[in-house]
């Protein structure tokens, strides 16, 4: 069963330079019990999708489309109604753990306030906080709960923000760039932590990342974003081992283990998108004429947005 179904999601921001279309006709779904990863480079509209699901977009954003959570429309409902889902139904592991923690509040309190709004009693909050922290392999949960964020290391802060996201046992976790700026060991630890979440009762995860290696290690299904559009979506093993879209091919070829062949060119600005295929001028096997904008089509068990596939 689909826990999250995003269809025809469009997000745009009016700016001085024209309408910036951060996300266009995005369709994908996350099945219950699977880890779905959306990969894309900076400016491909990854974060915007996560924020749209969580109603965290700035007020000037123009949003259309539909997002179903467990079969229920959540995009058009009021912020007030939606805030009841946040935390204990859908929850967020933020992009930057250091900046996402309140510097003036004790770490334990930052977990406890989530439990507080779920109506947990004060004594239970304390024991729950300790058990959440020890589940995330903190060796001294009481000490961590009593310290302030600046006293923890980067890795500890990340486990802490994950702990906060898990506090109210959500059914769907949205993780935004959890490995940003991490080295190989830290990334490996993050992979283990996310794979371990199943044990803590979280099984559906939507992961947003630019880290292809990380995505490969963790994903059940994968989507590739380019200039605000999803260009390929399907089972992760297929997408990464035999990519169909030329952009996905380019990304996979650029990985160190595949010889680090760089892709030429730059992605077009989101305010001035061409009419035809956005990838045309960078494509290794371009179509002769670039007038028809490609649509998502089902090819060998996955979806690809390419006129040639």
């Amino acid at each position: 069963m689909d826990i999250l179904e995003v269809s025809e999601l469009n997000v745009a921001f009016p700016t001085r330079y024209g309408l910036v279309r951060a996300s266009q006709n995005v369709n994908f779904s996350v099945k219950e019990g699977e880890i779905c990863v959306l990969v894309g480079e900076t400016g491909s509209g990854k974060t915007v999708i996560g924020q749209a699901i969580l109603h965290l977009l700035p007020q000037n954003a123009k949003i259309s489309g539909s997002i179903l959570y467990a079969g229920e429309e959540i995009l058009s409902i009021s912020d007030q109604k939606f805030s009841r889902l946040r935390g204990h139904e859908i929850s967020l592991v933020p992009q930057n753990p250091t900046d996402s923690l309140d510097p003036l509040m004790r770490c334990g309190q930052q977990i406890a306030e989530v439990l507080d709004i779920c109506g947990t009693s004060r004594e239970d909050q304390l024991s729950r906080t300790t058990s959440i922290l020890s589940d995330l392999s903190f060796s001294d949960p009481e000490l961590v709960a009593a310290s302030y964020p600046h006293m923890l290391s980067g890795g500890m802060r990340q486990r802490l923000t994950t702990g906060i996201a898990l506090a109210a046992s959500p059914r769907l976790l949205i993780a935004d760039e959890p490995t940003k700026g991490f080295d190989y060991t830290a990334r490996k630890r993050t992979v283990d932590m996310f794979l371990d979440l199943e044990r803590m009762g979280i099984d559906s995860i939507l992961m947003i990342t630019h880290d292809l290696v990380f995505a490969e290690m963790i994903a059940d299904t994968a989507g590739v974003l380019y200039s605000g559009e999803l260009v390929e979506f399907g089972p992760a093993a297929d997408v990464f081992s035999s990519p169909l879209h030329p952009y996905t091919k380019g990304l996979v070829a650029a990985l160190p283990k595949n010889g680090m062949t760089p892709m030429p060119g730059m992605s077009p600005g989101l305010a001035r998108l061409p009419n035809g295929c956005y990838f045309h001028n960078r494509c290794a096997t371009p179509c002769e004429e670039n007038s028809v904008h490609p649509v998502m089509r089902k090819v060998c068990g996955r979806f690809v947005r390419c006129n040639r596939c």
Partner: protein
Amino acid sequence: MHHYLIKRIIYLIFTLVIASMFVFVVVNATPGESAEVLARHLYIGLEEIAPPELIAEVSERYDLNKPILQLYLEWIGGILRGDLGYSILFNKPVNRLLMLHLPPTIFLTVVAMVFATTTGLVLGIFSALHQNRILDHIIRVGTIFSVSMPGFWVAVMLILVFSMWFGLTPISGYGGPPYIILPAIALGLHTMASITRIMRTSMLETMNKPFVMFAKAKGLPKRRVIVSHVCKNALLPVLTIIGTSFGTLLAGSVVIETIFSWPGIGAMLMKAISARDFVLIESTIMMVVFMFLIVNFVIDLLYHVIDPRIIYD
């Protein structure tokens, strides 16, 4: 923390010593023959010209001929023994004069500070939460107005409107609670406006921080996000302003007290300056400097209570 306290206290003493030298030199350098001015104030009348014999006698009697270093050391020695000197003009010990006039000034300053801080914070938070709506614009125009109007003019206008036209408050004097309202507003308005503006900016800046977005994502209701995450973090820059404006308020009280016939140090200081009663001027200013330093010392310690990232060593 212990080390920090000792270090801060040494700094405090050092600042006091430097300030005392500065105050002493500047006051003694006041233009005009001090013995002559003093003689006119004490014996003959302001419009007369003092004869040279009288000037010589006044200089002799009040030790005005002594070298400045000796005068300074005698003054400091007295302060260390708890004796702030003797006022020639009022013919009373400075200690007694300050005991009489300092409490009304402290009272006025504290009430003005409380008014400025509470109103400033409330308006600043309100303004930030209603950004770019009509009330926000009204508050912002009001604060620009309050910052640019001189305190004495505001005082006169307040008297005109609330005392003369509406008859709500006493015009001037020192008595029950109604007497403090207008002086406190006139004195604190400027500070209130700066606190409002800084709190508004600080709130808006904090609301864009990632931890506020995460607080929302955690499922906290908007009110709780504002109260327990935004406001507390936004308060930090305002704290510094509160400390420094305490000095502005103490200094500003000299003018405001004169307008409202408030029996504080203001009116006394004015008389002392025009009569060149040096010891009274110097000791009073040192008292003000001392209070200012103590308040800022406390604010520094408060920082530590609010912001755990500040480590003193």
